[in-house]
């Protein structure tokens, strides 16, 4: 009973409200339709008119109930309908007399009250009906009601019996209905609680993952370990609401673990104490994890034999340590400590494990970066020394060599007295060797400038390429004659050159250098057939080609010949050269915005092509 009269719960209230409102409105609409239909037939007899009024009253009560319920006054609304029917009963009795009081009227009231206002309504309107039935009986028998003859007590007695019986039946029916409703609502609530807690857990996990990924993101950005690690442990501590987080790095050479970063003042203090300890230290959670490369979770440190009490961290109650591995290689250990017993659960361990992995990769990256940085600095220093060395070599080596060349030249010219033919030959050999040496020095300087990215072009406007080609041919001619002197069948030199190449902007000395290099290579390697030099203008560029009928360059060497110090052949006779000519030439052409490439077939010959963009004016 207590439950029945207790205040309805929110859920009950809402469920009932919806049902009621639908019922109120349906009843209203239903009665309205009945009234319209009745009106259209006839309202001839008094009973018909009374019935019509009664229907109107109930319809009005239903509408009022609906409106009150919508406004939030559910209970007020619930009582209006039974009251409406009660009123109807009185109207009917006034017309027909108590004798016709049918129990059905009152039962209708109680049913409606039970449905709309619940058990309370059944009880209230049951009682009201009995009182009304008795009141009406006395009223009629005392002649208070007009035109009505007295009735025997049996009539109201039957009515009251009906009312009582129906009230009890309804009472229990509604009780059962209420119980079912409540249990259904309870089940619903339980479900909802479960859902809420699930949602909470998902939110927690999402937050954990967000923190982990935040930390990970941090990791990939910072490559400097000194900056990275302190921030990392602090973020982890805050994000997962831990007591202390530390990161130990493992040195495989000394087999020692060193505290690299720890949170808070404790961390800084312990780091300053340079806490290093061997991997076989016992008892130590961190050392054990490092040894076994397996996660260790201690959810109650006071019960643990491997947890070592740390006076700096008196409040630790749970500890979890995760190995930091990069491809099965130990980088270090991530150590987490909490003030709460049972803090580290299986579900979270996976996240920490992943985090440890990520940190491991970051630390490895940072270590590699540090190494690289060191190497880079070393290289930079070496590079500077190299440049300085080359600059001084350029002057110091060439000055005496210039004297050698010039004195040899003077002697060969007979300036210092008569020279025999044999001496002259020797002097010329000496001279050509010296010039070769000078070329070597110049090539080495060029390639080092190219490699240092310091090769600048001296671009002149209106360069006449035909003039430059002619100059190159003049320089190559003696080489060809020398080569031909040793051959039975001289090599033919074919020129396929457009004679009106337009003026263009370029570094003419460098273009000459490239052409001469390609021509002298062709002469050097060709022993029969011909060498063709072609120069054409095609659309917006010039195309140069030097074609020979030499032995050809094997496919696998065609890329390598553009690398410094590589030559296609080991043949001593042909190796006279620096092996730098092609890489230099390619760089010079590329510096002009052109391309240099080779096409060759073994036994047929080789063609070197290069392009030079046509630049009628220097772009300012």
């Amino acid at each position: 009973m207590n439950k029945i009269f207790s205040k309805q719960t929110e859920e009950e209230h809402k469920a009932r409200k919806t049902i009621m409102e639908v019922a109120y409105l349906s009843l209203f609409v239903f009665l309205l339709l009945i009234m319209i239909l009745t009106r259209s037939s006839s309202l001839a007899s008094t009973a018909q008119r009374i019935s019509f009024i009664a229907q109107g009253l109930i319809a009005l009560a239903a509408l009022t109930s609906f409106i009150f319920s919508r406004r939030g006054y559910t209970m007020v609304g619930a009582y209006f309908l039974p009251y409406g029917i009660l009123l109807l009963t009185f109207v009917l009795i006034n017309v027909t007399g108590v004798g016709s009081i049918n129990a059905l009227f009152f039962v209708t009231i109680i049913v409606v009250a039970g449905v709309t206002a619940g058990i309370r309504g059944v009880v209230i309107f049951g009682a009201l009906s009995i009182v009304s039935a008795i009141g009406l009986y006395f009223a009629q028998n005392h002649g208070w009601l007009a035109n009505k003859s007295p009735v025997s007590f049996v009539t109201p007695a039957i009515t009251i019996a009906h009312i009582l019986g129906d009230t009890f039946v309804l009472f229990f029916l509604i009780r059962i209905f209420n119980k079912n409703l409540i249990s259904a609502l309870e089940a619903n609530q339980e479900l909802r609680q479960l859902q809420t807690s699930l949602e909470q857990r998902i939110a927690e996990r999402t937050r954990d993952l967000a923190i982990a990924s935040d930390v990970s993101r941090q990791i990939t950005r910072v490559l400097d370990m000194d900056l990275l690690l302190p921030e990392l442990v602090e973020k982890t501590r805050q994000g997962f609401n831990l007591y202390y987080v530390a990161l130990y790095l493992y040195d495989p050479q000394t087999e020692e673990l060193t505290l690299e970063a720890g949170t808070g003042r404790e961390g800084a203090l312990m780091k300053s104490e340079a806490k290093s300890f061997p991997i076989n230290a016992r008892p130590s959670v961190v050392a054990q994890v490092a040894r076994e490369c397996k996660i260790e979770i201690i959810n109650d440190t006071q019960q643990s034999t491997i947890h070592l009490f740390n006076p700096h961290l008196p409040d630790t109650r749970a500890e979890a340590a995760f190995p930091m591995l990069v491809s099965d290689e130990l980088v270090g250990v991530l150590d987490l400590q909490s003030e709460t017993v049972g803090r580290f659960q299986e579900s979270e361990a996976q996240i920490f494990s992943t985090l440890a992995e990520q940190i491991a990769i970051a630390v490895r990256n940072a270590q590699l970066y540090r190494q690289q940085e060191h190497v880079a600095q070393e290289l930079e220093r070496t590079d500077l020394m190299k440049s300085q060395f080359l600059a001084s070599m350029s002057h110091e080596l060439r000055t005496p060599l210039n004297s050698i060349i010039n004195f040899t030249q003077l002697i060969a010219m007979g300036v210092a007295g008569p020279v025999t033919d044999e001496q002259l030959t020797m002097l010329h050999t000496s001279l050509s060797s010296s010039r070769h040496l000078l070329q070597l020095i110049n090539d080495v300087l060029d390639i080092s400038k190219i490699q240092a990215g310091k090769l600048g072009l001296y671009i002149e406007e209106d360069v006449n390429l035909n003039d430059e080609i002619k100059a190159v041919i003049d320089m190559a001619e003696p080489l060809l004659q020398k080569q031909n002197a040793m051959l039975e069948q001289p090599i033919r030199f074919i020129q396929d050159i457009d004679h009106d190449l337009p003026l263009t902007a370029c570094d003419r000395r460098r273009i000459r250098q490239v052409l001469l290099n390609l021509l002298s290579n062709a002469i050097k390697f060709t022993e029969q057939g011909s060498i063709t030099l072609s120069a054409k203008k095609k659309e917006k560029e010039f195309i140069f080609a030097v074609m020979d009928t030499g032995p050809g360059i094997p496919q696998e060497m065609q890329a390598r010949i553009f690398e410094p110090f590589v030559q296609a052949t080991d043949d001593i006779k042909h190796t006279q050269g620096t092996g730098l000519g092609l890489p230099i030439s390619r760089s010079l052409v590329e510096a002009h915005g052109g391309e240099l490439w080779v096409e060759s077939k073994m036994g047929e010959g080789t063609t070197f092509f290069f392009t030079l963009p046509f630049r009628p004016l220097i772009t300012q």
Partner: protein
Amino acid sequence: MNSQRPILVYVEDDENSILVMKMVVERVMGLPTLYVLQSRADFVQQVKGLGVVPDVFLLDIQMRPYDGVELLSMLRGDPQFNKSKVIALTASVTNEEVSLLKSGGFDGAIAKPLNIEVFPDLIARIINGEQVWYIA
């Protein structure tokens, strides 16, 4: 100006280079003398001390304490040498250097080592007023 027997002045700090130039000028070209001066602050005084106005100055570029470019600006400060040709002699002809020499006011440049066979002709062309950039 004496185009048959031009007066040449050479400023250089390397002994061997001086010797080469002396042989080229005095024996190959057959001129009476090559005046050799030193890279010093009193360079213009030294030139005036010669008692003649040189036709061609041959200035080494890589010298100490004053390099060829600095000596040129000393010369250009004196109108007495307006008509003299000033030629740079340089062993390392980089692209930057060529443009520097051109913009610096040299009348030409000759690369080292000297090409002795063409050198007399180069001097003749310079004296005739041609700009000579014999650098490659």
